[in-house]
């Protein structure tokens, strides 16, 4: 005989003591919540995927129509300052800077900020580019630690190096904002590789819309497994380690689907730290990057959006569904765990710092959809989902749930997850198809399937740890063990 609590889950009623009944009700009720939460989240992501599909198609059609390169040779296009904070980069900084100087854009400058490196980073730069110390004066419009010197080279007029006391990435970026001279700036990590035409693509939305566009971002991909020569990705390939391939599929989901859709709905709040293009005047008004948070990149966007809403100015934060940046993703479980932990902590910090946006009418869509979305789905999500993974088998074990039903419920959720992952691979194949070999396509699909059987759960666990750590109030970065491009692994 079956009876259900919310009319949905069958349970075998037997003669039990009242407290046992109560316990059963609680556990099963919670299972219901979790189950529907998971389905809801997956459905939201699925809707995102559909949005992303249409956005990407529109984008591709418009991109092919315009010979962007020729257009952007025009002098009428706004010049861009590239800010590149560097800390203990060693000799690899020279090649990164060279590739930044070679970008296809009519007018740009590269501002390297040496954040008080303890190694020879500055020396490598000065030697390689023949730089000299300059007399400088520039306003400190945003706060940063003292600048020790400014270096330029007559042979490379597009390059300046700012040498300053150590203050962290946000602080270094602020110094860069002060030293830069163009109305737009973008931030690039020293180990990130930009595509040659990256600037062309990310600046276009700023020109293309009638509304003000203070921030744009682009797709970031994993460079692991690609052949990198002289700071440029020459050929794309898949890495060997499963951990790296998992991340590639994840990035496809997050960037191609997630960000694109959020951008279409104009609720995009997160521009990843590896790359973002900003309108400098607006960034200055909100005080540049905040040095008191781990998620400084996310926070800047939130600050800008807040400011514009408060000023009642129309704006759009846009994401260009075009690959602009390649970065090396962590290759060990430890480093990856630390990175995700840090990202998650950063998110909570930002959410807490700006908690007055929540459901505040001044902030429009950001207030009633954007921020709550990040809180309930991205931030708190792991707690709910993980508890589901624990309680569902528990319920089955206690005989509260027919094991077969429990199993089938789980399978539904899992298969839905697989569909999502596979759709993002499909979206990639339909749009940019950067992986030319059949073997790679099949591998990607394979990993899209199996990522739902352990990897996703693992990321949830790391995010949960991030939540706990944030509650405990930690504020450090973990050291990221990095492998240089084309050089043996070196510990940071």
């Amino acid at each position: 005989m079956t009876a259900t609590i919310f009319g949905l889950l069958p349970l075998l009623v037997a003669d039990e003591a009242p407290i046992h009944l109560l316990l059963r009700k609680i556990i099963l009720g919670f299972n219901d919540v979790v189950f529907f939460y998971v389905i809801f989240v997956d459905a939201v992501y699925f809707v995102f995927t559909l949005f992303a599909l249409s956005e990407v198609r529109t984008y591709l059609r418009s991109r092919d129509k315009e010979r962007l390169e020729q257009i952007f040779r025009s002098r009428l296009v706004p010049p861009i300052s590239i800010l590149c904070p560097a800390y203990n980069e060693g000799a690899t900084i020279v090649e990164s800077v060279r590739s930044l100087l070679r970008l296809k854009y009519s007018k740009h400058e590269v501002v390297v900020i040496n954040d008080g490196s303890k190694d020879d980073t500055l020396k490598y730069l000065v030697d390689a580019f023949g730089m000299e110390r300059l007399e400088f004066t520039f306003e400190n419009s945003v706060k940063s630690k003292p600048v020790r010197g400014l270096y330029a080279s007559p042979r490379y007029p597009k390059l300046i190096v700012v040498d300053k006391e150590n203050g962290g990435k946000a602080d270094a970026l602020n110094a860069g904002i002060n030293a830069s001279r163009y109305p737009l700036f973008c931030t690039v990590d020293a180990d990130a590789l930009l595509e040659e035409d990256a600037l062309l693509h990310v600046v276009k939305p700023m020109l293309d819309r009638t509304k003000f566009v203070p921030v744009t971002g682009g797709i970031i991909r994993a460079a692991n497994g690609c052949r990198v020569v002289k700071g440029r990705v020459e050929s794309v390939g898949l890495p060997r380690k499963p951990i790296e391939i998992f991340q590639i599929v994840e990035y496809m989901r997050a960037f191609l689907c997630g960000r694109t859709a959020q951008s279409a709905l104009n609720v995009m709040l997160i521009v990843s730290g590896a790359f973002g293009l900003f309108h400098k005047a607006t960034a200055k008004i909100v005080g540049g990057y905040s040095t008191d948070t781990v998620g400084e990149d996310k926070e800047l966007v939130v600050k800008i959006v807040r400011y514009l809403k408060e000023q009642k100015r129309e704006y759009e934060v846009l994401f260009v569904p075009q690959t602009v940046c390649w970065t090396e993703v962590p290759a060990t479980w430890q480093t990856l765990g630390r990175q995700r932990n840090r990202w998650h902590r950063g998110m909570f910090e930002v959410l807490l710092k700006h908690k007055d946006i929540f459901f505040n009418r001044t902030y429009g869509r950001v207030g009633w959809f954007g921020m709550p979305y990040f809180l309930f789905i991205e931030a708190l999500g792991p707690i709910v989902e993980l508890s589901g993974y624990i309680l569902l088998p528990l319920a089955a074990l206690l005989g509260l749930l027919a094991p077969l039903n429990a199993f089938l419920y789980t399978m539904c959720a899992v298969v839905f997850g697989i569909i999502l992952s596979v759709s993002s691979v499909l979206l990639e194949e339909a749009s940019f198809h950067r992986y030319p070999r059949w073997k790679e396509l099949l591998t990607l699909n394979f990993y899209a399937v199996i990522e739902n059987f352990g990897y996703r759960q693992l990321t949830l666990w790391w995010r949960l740890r991030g939540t706990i750590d944030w509650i405990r109030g930690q504020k450090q970065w973990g050291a990221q063990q990095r492998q240089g491009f084309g050089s043996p692994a070196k510990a940071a």
Partner: protein
Amino acid sequence: MSMEEQENRPRVVIADDDPDIRRLVEMTVTNAGCDVTVASDGEEALARVRDSVPDLVILDVLMPRMDGWEVARALKSDPATREVPVMFLTSRGQEHDVLEGFDSGAVDYMVKPFSPRELQVRVRSVLAKRQ
């Protein structure tokens, strides 16, 4: 063509990352009576030049790995290749960059879109000056 004439054909190295332009320039310069070696980026161009010093180098400006200016500078700083004339193929918007960067040692430049016939004429004149 006799063996002597073959050996006396001027040698030209061409570098451009666009395969269409590369092929066209190769065909044009070959028709002008030269032996052509092609390279698809700056590094390769430098390597080809060092393999056997040519009579002329034609460089695109924006190339991956090493752009045209870097190659020209590298050629000028090496005594073995200092005397080799360098021609730039540049896009319309970059003309004044090339003019400013003439201290990287170019003898001539052509702007895209270019006329293959004109390229032939210029190549012939540069080679004639060499002799």
